[in-house]
């Protein structure tokens, strides 16, 4: 049996491109009014950090992928990205 170790994986969840993002739009407007005229768009999402045991980094990432599909992201409205697993 392979030794399990703990990996840290971060997940970025952002609103699906093309869906109206009122929070991002509001912040874009605020940045424009501060003089940051070149800002094209802002999107606000969630950053989730998970520490999980797994036999190796790939299996840790696969598990987090499944967590995103089943719970962490809403498949109707959100996209997600997973960072590489970092052994702790």
């Amino acid at each position, binding site marked *: 049996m392979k030794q399990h170790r703990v990996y840290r994986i971060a997940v970025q969840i952002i609103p699906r491109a093309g869906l*109206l993002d*009122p929070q991002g739009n*509001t912040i874009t407007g605020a940045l424009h009014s501060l003089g940051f005229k070149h800002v094209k768009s802002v999107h606000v999402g969630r950053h989730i950090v998970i520490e999980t045991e797994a036999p190796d980094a790939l299996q840790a990432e696969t598990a987090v992928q499944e967590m995103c599909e089943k*719970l*962490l992201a*809403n498949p*109707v*409205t959100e996209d997600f990205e997973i960072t590489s697993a970092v052994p702790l």
Partner: protein
Amino acid sequence: MKFGIVTFPGSNCDYDAYRAVVDQLGAEATYLWHKSHELEGVDVVILPGGFSYGDYLRAGAIARFSPIMREVVAHARRGGPVLAICNGFQIACEAGLLPGALVRNAGMRFISDAVHLRVENESTMFTSQYEKGAVLRIPIAHGEGRYVADAATIARLQDDDRVVFRYCDAAGNLTGEANPNGSMRAIAGIVSDEGNVLGMMPHPERAVDPLLGPPDGLLLFESLLARTAV
């Protein structure tokens, strides 16, 4: 006929729903605790409004894993009626009982107001006592009520006549101003494929007593009662 009203941690419209059913409709009702595995023989399940689990992660995302939800989903799969109001609608979408999702209002603000709804489909078990095209005045209270779904889902809801309520003005017209949260196609309520799950953001249980305004929500409950009386 017995109604079962689910209480999650953070539900806050369960009592209103109970009083609407017992006092105004004159039917039997019982609360169903979120940790329970038993529907106690109820005929209709109400998923009430509130902020279940503090809206952590996403509104309704955690509540769908409550033990009682396994029973509610089984009840729905058997064709049992489920009335999912506000946070209940969000939970029903997260649980896969209804398509689409409810996201932050287009105007970013939480809205507590009375709005007009147009009855789009009067042939459901929830709306048989209404006239098609009737304009109702029903309260809303939500921050995440903007209904969204992919284009194929929206088209299917439309083609199958599953949009039950739309936001409209007092005359029944669909206008941009009358859509409080920016919902696609002004959708305020939809039914499931089989027609036995209704999800809606407005609160019919808050519009059942003439003392508090037009009791336009009462006919929804009476429709359910009329169905089983047949």
